[in-house]
């Protein structure tokens, strides 16, 4: 938690003044019982109505001053904590943007989203409450004890005993229940998980007629949750009664010993009442503190999670890389004995890859799931760093490029067709910020997306909903392809990105790319033999190794694995024909 306090930097004044004003307010509150004691001891005893009115006015004034201080404190706390949240959010987002795919795979994007949103919000609330209340409660407790001390030294002993006992009770109850609340939360999560699972899997569950078993399992979990809730509730329900008993025991003591002291003349009746009041104030302050601790515990758990992200450093950086000049005019991409594994201990996902893609060539990559196709192509834009060997783009090792220069050369169409909220035009401009409508339309045409966009009443201004919900899978894929084409890069990577297209459109698309864009180096990753068979070179991947390299015909002749794939997808006659 404290590590994050640096984000209060621009708000030092507010962070200091806030609590100070809060303490001033508390001071006013502490004066109230003294004034009341004066009203009783002097006003009533001597029958001075005027004095009573003056003191009454003082009370109202104290209230007003307190209100003013408290509002000021509140404003400063709001300012500072929102400033804190804003700065933290900005910084965290920037930090996340430096991550390579490695880190993103490791943490998972959904976690990152929660850290960015609810965790930061919690931390922000924590800071706000901290500034508002954290100093106030102890201050009131101490202030009340001091006030008691000023009234009567001996009776202060009651305060000195009661306050720690109260503190201890609160501490015990909370240290019992807070960790158990996380346990409860886990059980709540489990119940939620079961619910979600059952909704998503409703067809399978009914197909296997497992409804009754699912209900049983759910009931077990719901019961279990309830029992834990009740048990934990039993202890936390002790808090109020226990503190009530202690405070009243103290009041009892104050009255008794107060009586004794009054009898000897060291104390007045009004002062006894003041002492009783102070005792109640201590209780209120400690209860507020207990609530605050709950909030702070949550906030500090959140800040631990946020700090975890900050601690994580990108494993792939372009620091100190200056603009490079291309040194190879013939070859676009060269892999030299490249091996790769996702994490140090793990198996190699790719091993010993060697191949060259000449400028303007189309390279097909075929292989099964987990054979390393996607991994291979994500090394080219340096989403990951090769573990061994080197990758050259235009003759220069990718590690020597600044990210923007390297990635400007390459357009990637990812497997998952992702579009962003905004118009079609906005999405197309991702590739090239200053793309004209003409360029966009051309790209849409090549990507076979022009027709359906033109059919829309708003054309390029058609709004795309989040995740492209208002489009079909095939439409989304074609738009992501168009987006990459708009970029006018030197290298185009299609990572199994036509899977939702029917064969006809897929074929037209490939034809258009080949005919319309000259000099482009294309990588086509696919499981369909038809998609790669016209490539200049096909790489057959199996278990991270290249087990075949050549044209469709060459591979049919000398790569049995490739032939096997083709036989399952094409007719025997076709394969025979191609082989000749």
């Amino acid at each position, binding site marked *: 938690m404290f590590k994050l306090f640096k984000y209060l930097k621009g708000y030092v004044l507010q962070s200091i003044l806030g609590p100070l004003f809060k303490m001033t307010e508390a001071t006013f509150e502490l004066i109230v019982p003294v004034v009341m004691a004066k009203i009783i001891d002097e006003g009533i005893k001597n*029958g001075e109505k005027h004095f009573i009115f003056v003191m009454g006015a003082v009370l109202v004034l104290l209230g007003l001053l307190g209100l003013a201080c408290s509002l000021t404190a509140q404003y400063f706390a709001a300012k500072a904590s929102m400033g804190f949240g804003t700065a933290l959010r900005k910084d965290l987002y920037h930090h996340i943007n430096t991550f390579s795919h490695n880190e993103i795979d490791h943490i998972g994007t959904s976690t*990152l989203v929660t850290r960015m949103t609810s965790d930061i919000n919690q931390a922000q609330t924590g800071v706000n409450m901290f500034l508002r209340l954290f100093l106030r409660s102890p201050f009131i407790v101490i202030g009340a004890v001091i006030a008691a001390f000023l009234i009567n030294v001996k009776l202060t002993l009651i305060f000195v005993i009661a306050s720690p006992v109260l503190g201890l009770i609160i501490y015990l109850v909370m240290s019992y229940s807070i960790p158990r609340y996380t346990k409860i939360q886990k059980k709540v999560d489990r119940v939620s998980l079961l619910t979600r699972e059952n909704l998503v899997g409703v067809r399978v569950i009914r197909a296997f007629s497992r409804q009754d078993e699912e209900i049983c399992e759910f009931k077990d979990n719901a019961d279990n949750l309830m029992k834990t809730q009740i048990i934990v509730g039993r202890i936390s329900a002790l808090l109020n009664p226990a503190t009530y008993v202690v405070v009243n025991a103290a009041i009892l003591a104050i009255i*008794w010993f107060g009586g004794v002291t009054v009898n000897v003349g060291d104390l007045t009746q009004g002062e006894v009442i003041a002492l009783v009041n102070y005792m109640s104030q201590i209780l209120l302050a400690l209860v507020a503190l207990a609530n605050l601790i709950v909030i702070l515990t949550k906030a500090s758990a959140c800040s631990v999670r946020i700090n975890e992200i900050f601690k994580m450093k990108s494993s792939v950086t372009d620091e100190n890389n200056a603009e490079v000049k291309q040194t190879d005019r013939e070859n676009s991409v060269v892999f030299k004995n490249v091996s790769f594994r996702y994490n140090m201990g793990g198996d190699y996902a790719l091993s010993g890859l060697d191949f060259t893609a000449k400028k303007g060539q189309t390279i097909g990559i075929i292989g099964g799931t987990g054979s390393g196709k996607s991994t291979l192509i994500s090394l080219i834009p340096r989403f990951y760093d090769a573990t061994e060997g080197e990758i050259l783009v235009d003759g220069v090792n990718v590690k020597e490029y600044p990210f923007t220069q390297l990635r400007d050369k390459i357009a990637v169409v990812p497997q998952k067709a992702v579009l962003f909220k905004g118009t079609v035009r906005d999405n197309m401009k991702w590739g090239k910020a200053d793309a004209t409508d003409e360029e966009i339309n051309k790209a849409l045409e090549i990507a076979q997306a022009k027709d359906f966009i033109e059919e829309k009443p708003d054309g390029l201004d058609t709004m795309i909903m*989040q995740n492209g919900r208002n489009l079909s899978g095939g439409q989304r894929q074609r738009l992501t392809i168009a987006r990459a084409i708009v970029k006018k890069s030197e290298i185009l990577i299609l990572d199994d990105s036509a899977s939702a297209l029917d064969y006809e459109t897929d074929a037209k698309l490939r034809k258009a790319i080949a005919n319309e864009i000259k000099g482009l180096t294309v990588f086509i990753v696919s499981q369909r033999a038809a998609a790669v068979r016209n490539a200049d070179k096909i790489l057959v991947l199996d278990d991270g190794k290249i087990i075949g390299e050549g044209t469709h015909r060459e591979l049919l002749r000398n790569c049995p694995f490739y032939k096997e794939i083709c036989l399952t997808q094409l007719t025997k006659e076709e394969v025979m024909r191609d082989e000749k």
Partner: protein
Amino acid sequence: MKSRKKTEERSVLMRILSFTKPYSAYIVFTMIFALISVALTLYAPILTGDAIDLIIEKGKVDFAGIIPILIKFAVTVVITALAQWLMNLCTNKLTYMTVRDIREQAFEKIQRVPLKFIDSQGQGDILSRMITDVEQVSDGLLMGFTQLFSGIVTIFGTIGFMLSINVKITLIVVVITPLSLFVASFIAKRTFNMFKIQSETRGEMTSLIEEMVGNQKVVKAFSYEDDAEEKFDVINKKLQECGVKALFYSALTNPSTRFINGLVYSGVGVFGAISAIGGNISVGQLSCFLSYANQYTKPFNEISGVITELQSAFASAKRIFEIIDAKEQTPDAENAVELEKADGRVELKDVKFYYDPKIPLIEDLNLKVMPGQRIAIVGPTGCGKTTIINLLMRFYDVVGGEISVSGYPVKEITRDSLRGNYGMVLQETWLKTGTVFENIAYGKPDATMEEVEAAAKAAHCHGFIKRLPKGYDTVLSDEGENISQGQKQLLCIARVMLCLPPMLILDEATSSIDTRTEILIQQAFDRMMEGRTCFIVAHRLSTIRGADCILVMDKGHVIEKGTHEELLEKGGFYAKIYNSQFAV
């Protein structure tokens, strides 16, 4: 309008109360303990006041009088504490048990409603009702039970006690206090708008983050980081501005009500003191009044909070009851047949079906499937292939015509036994959170390790399962995120392999399994399909070629029907998509 809302709220309340019926003893106890604790809490200041009255000044302290008062005081305090604790225990039990019952009923209902309900309502919506709304009801009930009743009792109790001491001073308290309610509601109304703006901005922020961080890989690919950060900054700034306002204004309530509390306190102090001079009340009674004044505004402030909380709990409860009240699927006919083992005959006679009467989908579909035949269903994505599965599995009932299996119309067969005769592998691979073993044995929970291993071997997943950290005992978490999509699919196949029912439904089951494994699976399937009727929804033409009959679907309709050769000859839609594969 407003009165309708009122009656609606009342009926929701009655409904909630009906859920608490089994625990009505707890309600009674809650009320009794609340009454005891409130009454005694209010009685304690009177006792302290009495005691203080006996402490006048030097030499004038009546110890003999104080002792019995203090003893009474001590007993009162202990009983109060006890009553408070017991009340808390009762409300805890009451709330958590009621909420559990609501949860369970909703969950049971989900298992019994027709699929149509889930499909049309949307999973996300049902989910949020069953999770978020239930939580809301739980919070609302707990708060309502603990604070509403005791709050009301406290307010009236205090007034009663105060009146019994002094009417005039009581009036001061009663007149000034509502001011705090007024101020609180005034602030609440003002802040509502700011909170609305804040939560809208927050929503904007969240969706941006979800979009950008969720698709970080695409952002990277297009070097869009800086642009994204710019967009982010704009919203972040906006959030900061409206956040400060919302936070500040909402934080006004506390100091303001505290100030009014202070006013009440001063008023009581001044007028109490003056009455004391006139001898109308004693100093002890004044001190008693002062402590009432301190605690009197508290329940007022709390109750307004409780009421808001209860209102949203009611709204949530209403949404949950909509699920609990959903119509269940028609039960199996009384004389329904328990179909032990289907012979594999399936017949569709004049089948008519639609989801929405305005959009007729399947009309007069006739199909006679003999045991062991393979039926392929083909067509572009979204053509309605799943509709056929819905009908075969009887997830939906036909609107007209009849489907029969083994010569029995499906309506005369129990659903469980009908579905048990189909082995289904869907495109959306669904696995339970549980071990690999439990998942494969899902259709046959009493399967032995040998059987499960055999099925896994047949589906070619034994190898990768062995490589998992704990083999068959590895827990697949969160819908199986720790294994790949292809591996999930293999597990789903193994799950069917274990049961080996006489009929199979395969929904593009092999689409994300690598080609090599697919070949092996194809072989396993061929073995499995031997003598089994099989419906295959597939993109791969190679799988379709061998089918005995092909149903070609488009936009929800079955547009062509026949064997591969017949359809090619016909030169229709099928011929077009078939030929296009070999274009270029």
